[in-house]
């Protein structure tokens, strides 16, 4: 068990910076999820923690030790790869025993450990198979077993579930969460998957372009995104953004077809934005349909329904109003049809306001709390 701390960590490939000034503290036993668009440097970060990539600047500490230049084997870490990276020529048993054999763990000890881990992962009857004779989910568990058995200080996982199909992914997600609850090893977890990011970690680190955008608890990131990037990245379907002009009281679009009054309590935060563009962020679930005949309020917009997507437990509507495009999430009982013109109200308690240029969230939640 160990905490991980990155201080001003940098990575350059042939002088091209890929990561710059990364600062991140991961507490002992914490489950941290790294998310971000492809190419933002998640894998690179993980590889640097693992020691697979050299660190070109800054310091990396694991536990009490500065491990910046140590080779992987001296860092007390274990890693699970997206492709599992099982040794294809070794049985499950040998795969799991590999690290222990290298460390010259006594035979009997190895056997005990393997049995324990295999039982916990429910792979005890697969021990003599080769990886190619396993299903995706089983492989994933073997990879996990190989990492678990050494009781490392830190677990690193790079999209370990992305090769599984939807069903297995949900299962494995619960499984990993429980596992972490039991063993409590510090874990850094990279994923592309919204649901994984939201549900698995106690902290989400959102990265973009080699920089950390926000690092906070999942609901915090969901409800109080630091900036427009984070807001758009977390949540599926993504948050809807409306670029509007702030006139001191309300947000207007250029064609003047839209006018959304800003609640009193938010005006202070938006004070500096008068006459400038503000991006209004509305999550799909914060649209509500007004019954036909209802009187349009200060928070209502008339949308045209472009596409209706029945998902069974919910309905997604692709909406448009002039140049603005939105997606709304509605209960399955909704009866909207393609081509309908409907009036929607926005739940103004849950909208977000972003600086039209920098994308910064204009509300300072920290102060608000």
């Amino acid at each position, binding site marked *: 068990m160990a905490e991980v701390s990155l201080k001003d960590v940098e990575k350059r490939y042939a002088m091209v910076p890929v990561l710059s000034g990364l600062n991140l503290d991961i507490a002992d036993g914490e489950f941290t999820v790294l998310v971000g668009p492809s190419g933002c440097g998640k894998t690179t970060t993980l590889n640097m923690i693992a020691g697979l990539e050299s660190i070109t600047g800054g310091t990396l500490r694991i536990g009490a030790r500065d491990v910046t230049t140590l080779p992987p084997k001296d860092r007390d870490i*274990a890693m699970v790869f997206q492709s599992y990276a099982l040794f294809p020529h070794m049985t499950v048993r040998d795969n799991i025993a590999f690290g222990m054999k*290298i460390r010259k763990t006594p035979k009997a000890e190895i056997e005990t450990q393997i049995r324990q881990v295999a039982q916990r992962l429910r792979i005890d009857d697969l021990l003599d198979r080769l990886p190619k004779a396993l299903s995706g989910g089983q492989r994933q568990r073997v990879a996990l077993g190989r990492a678990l058995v050494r009781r490392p200080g830190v677990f690193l996982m790079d999209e370990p579930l992305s090769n599984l199909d939807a069903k297995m992914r949900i299962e494995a997600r619960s499984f990993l969460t429980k596992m972490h609850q039991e063993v409590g090893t510090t874990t850094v977890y990279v994923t592309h998957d919204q649901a994984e990011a939201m549900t698995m970690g106690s902290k989400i680190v959102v990265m973009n372009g080699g920089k950390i955008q926000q690092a906070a608890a999942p609901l915090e990131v969901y409800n109080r995104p630091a900036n427009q990037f984070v807001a758009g990245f977390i949540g599926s379907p993504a948050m809807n953004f409306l670029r509007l002009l702030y006139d001191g009281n309300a947000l207007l679009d250029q064609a003047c077809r839209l006018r959304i009054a800003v609640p009193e309590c938010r005006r202070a935060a938006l004070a500096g934005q008068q006459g400038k563009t503000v991006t209004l962020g509305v999550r799909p679930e914060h649209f509500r349909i007004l019954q036909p005949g209802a009187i349009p309020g200060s928070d209502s917009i008339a949308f045209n329904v472009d596409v209706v997507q029945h998902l069974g437990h919910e309905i997604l509507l692709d909406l448009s109003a002039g140049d603005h495009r939105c997606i709304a999430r509605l209960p399955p009982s909704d009866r909207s049809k393609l081509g309908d013109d409907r009036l929607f109200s926005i739940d103004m308690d849950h909208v977000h306001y972003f600086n039209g240029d920098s994308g910064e969230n204009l509300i300072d939640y920290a102060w608000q709390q």
Partner: protein
Amino acid sequence: MASSASRFDDGTFVGFARRHVFVTVFGVAVPLLVFACFIGYPIVYTIYLSFFEWNGMAPQKKFVGFANYAYLLHDKYFYIALVNNAKWLVVSLVFPVSLGFLIAYVMKARLVFAPSLLRTIVFFPVTMSLIAVGLMFLLILNPVFGAFDTLLRSVGLGFLVHEWFGDYRIALYTLAVISGWAFTGMPMIFYFAGLGDVPKETFDAARIEGAGHWRMIRSVALPQLRPVTAIIVMLTLFESLRAFDLIAVLTKGAPFGMTNVLGYLVYMESFWNSRFGYGAALSVVILVIAGSLAALLLGKVLKGAFDV
């Protein structure tokens, strides 16, 4: 209609040929025809000839049944050659194949500077004709003024100096090592390419698990390179069984037949001693050995690598 479907898909060659005329003609018929004329006929002829006694010139061949094979069983030279072939193969596997792998690994792991230069240098002799290689080493390993001996003496390793071609205990190894020198580039590039196909993550995983280079080679790289190894071993096997040019250039079997290998024996018996029937019998033996070892290799070690 269903019957017509199964008629077309009956899995027979005729069914296939009817649907894929182009492939059948140019992918199967033409190559097999060419093969039959230029490779198949010689093989059949060789087998036929192995039952005759013939000096290569006489218009008549004398049928002798299995006499050539019977003689072969007591031919001391045959056994010398057979054992030499085995030694040659072992040296080839230990020296060029292992070293080729090692160089490839070292380059892939970026452990050396200027890996492409090293690759170029080591690959270059592959392009040299064995005559050229032979001539070169005749000069270098010459017992009178050879650079190699001179070098050994000048660095105080004079006790290592031997009659590289003259000492019957080591001459064969000298030849095998020379052939290895010329051959190393081949396994090297095959392994280099093969290493590129081994998932990088398995190396990363092994590193994290604490494996050093030795362990990495033994437990991660080599097992995953088995198909490459099998191809290389197979080509090495074929090469070593066929080899005769280097021996023809360098020793002609000297000293006293101790550097004969099967391939050279075929040449010797056929063209030098004018016993073409016997030479053919030796060829058949080579074919059988090569074929069965290849089959063994493909069937066991390399299961699936050639799945066609």
